[in-house]
Structure formats: C-alpha cells, structure tokens
C-alpha cells in the first residue's frame, strides 16, 4: 500500500517536473539525441571497438577465434601485398598534389571575369557527381587499347605502336589510375578554392589594380595569403585521401597487375579470404596513420596561426598593411 502511494506521488511529481521548463528541456534534449547517438554508437563506435579487438585474433566471421597477440600487426608490415600497397599510396599523393595545383590555377582564373566562366566551371565540376562504378567503366573504355585515349593521342601524331597498354603495363598503370582520380576530384577542389577566393574583399583587388599589380602579383600577395588555410587543409586531407584510395583500382583493374591499393588489398583479405583479424589489423594501422596526420595538422595550424584571435580581429588591417608594404616596395623599384 505504502509503495503504491509512493509511486502515485512520484508520478505526480514527474508530471509536474515534465511541465516545468527544466523538465521540458531535458526531455527534448534526450528525445532529440537518442536516435543519432544510437546510430553513431551502432555503426561507428561499436564496430571501432570490435575492430581493435579483432586485430589480436586469428578469426573468420563465423567459427572459433584464436588469440595471436601482435602477430597480425607484424604481418601487415611483412606481407608483400600489404606493405607494397602502402607504398602505392605515394602515387596517389603525387596525384593529389597535381590535382590541388591544377585546381588552384583554374580557380584563380575563374574567380576573375571570364566569358562563359560558369559553363567551364560546370564542365569541370560535373565528374565529381558521377558514381564510382560508372567512372570505372568510363575509364576502362577510355584506356582500352585503340579506344578513346589512344585515338586522341593518334590525332596528336603519336603512333599506336609506341603507346603502352595503359592498364596492363606495370610502369604506367598506376599513373593511369591516379589520373582517373585527379579527373574526378579536381573540379570539386576548384569549386572549393573559388569559394575561398570569392570571400576575399573585392576592394583589395581594386586597390591592387590601382597600384598596378599584375595578375601574378595579385595571386601571390592577395589570394594566396587569404586562402592558405584551406589549401593547407586540403594538402593534409589528401594524405589521408591517398591512403584510402579505393574505387579506381577496385572497379577498373580489380587490383590486378600491381594496382592493388591498401583498401583493395584489405577488402580482398576481409571479404574474400575472410581473414578478419589481419584485415582489422590493417585497418587499425591505417587509422593510426590518419590520427598521426590529423595531430600533425592540428599542430601545424597551431604553429602557423598562433595568434588566430588577432587574425580574426585584425585580418583586414593585416592585409591592408601587407598591401601597403607591397605598394611601397613597388614604388621603390
């Protein structure tokens, strides 16, 4: 009896509490966060924890597991396919440097008045919206012997006999594949950079024009300083991006002829050979590299933008000063 009365009392208390502002706040916070947090936990942190655990076992998805300690990690560095794949990512890093430089160049051109600028921008951006598998087929077709690429090169005067097999020849096939990834992403990078350049105060350009600065000087003294944050960010992102290159080799060559990147090898080990432990160890190694790159990035930004708050306040002033200094030098010449 007493217990019943007690629950009735707390029920009334609960209702009262739920009607109060504080109660409403807590209810809405919990109600609105429960689904995203459950999703985040189920599909990100739970598998993350499991994966770290798996990496110490020799196991398949079903069947018994044997604890093997650090052996899987040793295999990652001793197996030729795993370690070789890590070296392959250097090609992709090279590709992303080309991609960023190209994007920066085109973005600079397009952020000034250009006839038909929007059409050019659209053409170059569109590849980013095509699905990876379609891109795979497009480039399989593109690189096939005697097909699109060879034909275009023949128009330019090359002999077919002198051209390599773009996807078979081991000295060139990785470059061909990196090319597809540059093709896919340079337009997107370009749009990113255009956005950053456009956020620069247009008065600065006018002032520079009046002072007689040419395009290159405008780029060097106005554009580059104001977008260096986003450029550095992209350079560092490209390190992790290169390590996770997957779709071009997976779809175009299935990793044959020495084109298997880290993810292609990992996918094969996990889902075809079902060596889940080894694949998990590979994933953890990759994650550690990505963490290292991220920490490096944080440190770098801390070092470069030590007085970030000053920058926010005095960014315009600073640039004005820079411009004045630049103008003074120009006058002195």
């Amino acid at each position, binding site marked *: 009896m007493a217990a019943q009365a007690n629950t009735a009392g707390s029920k009334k208390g609960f209702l009262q509490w739920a009607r109060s502002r504080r109660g409403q706040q807590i209810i809405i916070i919990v109600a609105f966060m429960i689904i*995203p947090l459950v999703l985040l936990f189920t599909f990100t942190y739970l598998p993350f924890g499991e994966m770290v655990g798996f990496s110490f076992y020799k196991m398949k998805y079903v069947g018994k597991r044997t604890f093997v300690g650090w052996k899987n990690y040793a295999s990652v560095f001793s197996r030729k396919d795993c370690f070789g794949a890590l070296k392959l990512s250097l090609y992709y890093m090279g590709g992303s440097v080309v991609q960023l430089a190209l994007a920066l160049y085109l973005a600079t051109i397009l952020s000034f008045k250009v006839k038909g600028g929007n059409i050019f921008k659209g053409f170059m951006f569109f590849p980013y919206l*095509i699905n990876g598998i379609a891109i795979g087929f497009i480039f399989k*077709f593109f690189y096939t012997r005697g097909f699109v690429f060879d034909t275009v090169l023949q128009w330019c005067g090359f002999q077919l006999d002198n051209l390599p097999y773009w996807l078979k020849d081991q000295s060139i096939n990785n470059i061909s594949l990196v090319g597809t990834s540059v093709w896919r992403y340079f337009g997107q990078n370009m749009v990113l950079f255009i956005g950053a350049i456009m956020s620069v105060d247009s008065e600065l350009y006018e002032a520079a024009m009046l002072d007689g600065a040419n395009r290159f000087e405008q780029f060097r003294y106005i554009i580059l300083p104001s977008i260096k944050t986003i450029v550095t960010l992209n350079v560092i992102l490209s390190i992790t991006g290169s390590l996770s290159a997957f779709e071009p080799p997976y779809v175009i060559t299935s990793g044959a002829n020495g084109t298997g990147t880290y993810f292609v090898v*990992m996918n094969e080990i996990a889902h075809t050979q079902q060596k889940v432990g080894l694949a998990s160890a590979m*994933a953890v190694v990759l994650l550690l590299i990505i963490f290292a790159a991220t920490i490096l990035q944080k440190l770098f930004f801390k070092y470069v933008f030590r007085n970030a708050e000053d920058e926010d306040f005095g960014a315009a002033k600073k640039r004005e000063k820079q411009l004045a200094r630049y103008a003074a030098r120009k006058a002195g010449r």
Partner: protein
Amino acid sequence: MTTLQKTGHYLAIFVKYLSLVFFSFVAVLPVVSCVITAFKTEEEYQNTNVMTLPQSWLNPDNFLQAFDRANMGRAFVNSTIILVSVLVVSVLVGTSLAYVLNRFKFPGNGLIRNLFLFATLLPGIAMQIAVYGIMDSLNFINSLPGYIIMMCGTDVIAIYIYIQFFENISVSLDESAIIDGASYFTIYHKILLPLLKPAIVTACILKGVGTYNEYYCANLYLQNKKLLPTVATSLYTFVGPLGSKYNLICAGVIISLLPALIVFILFQKQIYSGMTAGSVKG
C-alpha cells in the same frame, strides 16, 4: 601601353582561355566518348573507331537493352526508395540534433560534438570489416530497411551546415515563442525548421548525391542482386560476359548518370555553396 605590354596582355588572355578550354575538354571527353558509343549499333561499334560519330543520334536500342539486362527498372525503384527514406530520416535526425546542440547548454554538449567530429576520421570502407558482423547479427544483410538505417548514420557535414545556420537565427525568436507558451518541440517544428529550408536543400543535395552513388556498402549488404539492385550496383552486371560490349555498357553508364546531371543543372548554385559549406569542417 607599350606594344610589349599589349602583346603580354593578349598572350595572358590567350593562355587563360586555352587552359579553360583544354581542361574542360579533358573533363568532358571521357563522358562524351561514352555518349557517342551508346548510340552506335552493334555493327557500327564493331567496324568504326570509337570516336567516329554514330549514324543516328536517335538510336535507342542500346539504352533499352542495357536498361533491361541490368535490371535497371528495379534498380531505379530501389534507389528511389533508399534515397527518399534516407533523406527524410537524416533531415529530421540531423536538424533535431543540431537544434539541441546549438540551443541548449548541457554537460556533454562539447563531448557529443567531438564524438561526431572524430567519427569522420574513421574511413568508411575500413569500418565495414566490423560493421559487417553487426549488420549480420541485426539481420540487416539483404534487407532494404537495414541498409537504409545504416545509411542514415548522421553525417557531420550536414550537422555542421545546420548548426552554422542555427547560429544565424536569433535566439530572441525562441524566447518570444516561449513567452507565448510554445513548447520546445513547437519552436523546433513550427518556427525553426521552416527557416532552415535553404540549409536543408543544400544538405539534401550533398547527401542525396552521396547516397545515389554509394556503391561499396550496397554491394556488400544488398547481396541479392536480382531483387535488391541499386542503380550503382546494377551497373556491375556488365562486368561478366557482357564485359566487352561497350555500346551497351556506355548506354547503361549514361542512364545511371542522367539523374545526377538533371539535379546538377537544376541546383548548381546550391551544390556549389554546399561544397564550400562542407569544407569548413575539421
């Protein structure tokens, strides 16, 4: 201007347009060559160079055949179901999360933001090694709802777009509604959500393109390719015995990228602004 400066000026303009034309050509060529081949008859495809234009630009045979062979009718139905469900759920979940994170101060607010941010560091494909086991134990393999739930896993870029937008909506709007006796849910649902529309459009386009193009997980978790193809996985039909019939393959590729092309033409501005908004993360 001296003559030298003049020549330099014209040369700069020439180089500028040359670069634009050249790189636009590079960007378009692979796709255009596919379009050319998609309109060729079998005989033409066998006997002419790939860059020779087709006799008829109205030949639909390859498109019909590709659509049929790759089971693309079914694929479009599935992809549409997936797209609509994922967008509806992720908009509701994303905006409500952003609302709570932006409007309320509570212990753990910062921690939760960081948890979401940290999750972006974990590369999706690597995570699938362990997610596969979880999907299996939830009976989510070969299940459309299962795949949809997994794809709804909130993405941080969208949340950041929403949070940024909330920051620009004055809190006094909330406060006056509270004085009028509105509950927090009413504020979110009746006042803020309609104001958030531009941000929702941007986030939806980004997420929509990503979902429509998603291949890896669809291939991994929707293994029944007869009943559960998506547009991206249906293209994979062409890998087997049809692997050298490029007139069919190209037609399939063109069909699969048409929706993306239409969305791009209609929503160019939002897509570009979405790109820039997404870049603020990190």
